[in-house]
């Protein structure tokens, strides 16, 4: 499949090269923090906010209020993020609770039977992930960004943070994770975007290898 690339006549790089190995294919580095969402920004009062981890049947559910979530051990990951709309941002600083901590705390007992999760959110957004992509220190429920509370347009009060996948997987306004035995495509995954979304393999759209 090593086809000869189509050279754009008269096109030259206009940006300084990013540090080697940090920019996935087709991405460019931005210093801004662009906002992309399919609908209005939801605003849920913190008094009504909770985070849930649900098993396949709702009787096995764990729930944390805003204060309870903040009482869990916190981590402060600094990570590069990559949006499918082509921008990448380096060294973003977050504060949140590891999904490992939440799943451990949930004591659902039957996690072994569930290889997938769907994140659900205020506003109705969903995204699906293999359980292996949100465990092992790879994913957080983040409520702090750059030393301050996460702003609503960036997903506050809390968003999922899964920086090794395209950023639509880092669901804004996240309210919980549902554990599933079988994979179920989420919002963008039903609308033509890739099911897994690994930026290093440039898995942007359905059919990308």
């Amino acid at each position, binding site marked *: 499949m090593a086809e000869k*690339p*189509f*050279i*754009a*006549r*008269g*096109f*030259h*790089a*206009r*940006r300084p090269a990013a540090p080697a190995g940090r920019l996935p*294919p*087709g*991405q*460019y580095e931005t210093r*801004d923090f*662009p*906002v*992309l*969402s*399919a*609908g*209005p*920004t*939801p605003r849920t009062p913190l008094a009504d906010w909770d985070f849930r981890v649900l098993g396949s049947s709702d009787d096995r559910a764990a729930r944390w209020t805003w204060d309870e979530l903040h009482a869990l051990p916190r981590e402060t990951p600094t990570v590069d993020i990559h949006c499918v*709309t*082509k921008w990448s941002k380096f060294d973003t600083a977050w504060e949140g609770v590891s999904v490992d901590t939440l799943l451990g705390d949930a004591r659902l007992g039957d996690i072994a039977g569930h290889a997938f999760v769907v994140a659900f959110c205020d*506003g*109705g957004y969903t995204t699906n992930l293999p359980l292996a992509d949100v465990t092992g220190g790879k994913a957080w429920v983040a409520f702090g960004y750059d030393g301050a509370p996460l702003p609503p*347009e960036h997903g506050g009060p809390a968003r999922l943070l899964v920086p090794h996948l395209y950023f639509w997987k880092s669901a804004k306004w996240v309210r919980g994770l549902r554990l599933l035995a079988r994979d179920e495509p989420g*919002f*963008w995954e*039903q*609308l*033509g975007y890739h099911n897994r979304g690994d930026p290093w393999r440039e898995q*942007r*759209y*359905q*059919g*990308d*290898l």
Partner: protein
Amino acid sequence: MTDTAVPARLEWRVATVVHVRDETAHAKTLILDVPQWPGHRAGQHVDVRLIAEDGYEAQRSYSIASPPEEGTVALTVERIESGEVSPYLCDVLREGDGVELRGPIGGYFVWNVSYGGPLLLVGGGSGIVPLMAMLRHYARAEPDVRERVEIRLIYSVRAAADVIYMKEVDALARSTGVRIELTFTRAAPEGWQGYHRRIDRAMLEEVSWPASARQHAYVCGPTPFVESVATLLVELGHDPARVRTERFG
């Protein structure tokens, strides 16, 4: 729903520029002939990829301005001076050149007459582009179909020189009855009787339907513009699930 079909990859295709049209001092429309174009829906976009001789690569997304009914694909590109793809598309690319793209992409910010109305379109600056595809699609629908679907457009621009598609939008308003409200956020033309401010609650109340009409709203433009308009629509009681947004940067 079970889906065992392997989805087809969106292949890169080399499109040919068949026509370049100046829209404003900062925006051009490229009319492209795309081989084996699979067709698109109004509101979708494409990815454009530029590869330099030395292998350097840049990709960006651009909304499609043309309706599904046309055989060619039109992209209206606003030149971002600090950008690297839009200056190439606006200043270097000429008729007869090839340009690589793949698509169509995006299945949410789309509209078809079969979705019905009433339809409120709110565009800021070059955010008009995907909305124009919807208007052009509407203009090609049968008159009896159009009669059942009412459309209103609020188009916010800085000044008259920034208005894209004005003649066509005017003509479309006359031929289809779409209500067009232009608002100038900086300089309005001499003698301008219409809106001359940023879109605010009062303007949205005046132009949109009451919440009970369950309008579909499509809002596209720069992030602060979309944040503001979408939030106001929700505050006015419109169902958030019927407010679709597309934000530029």
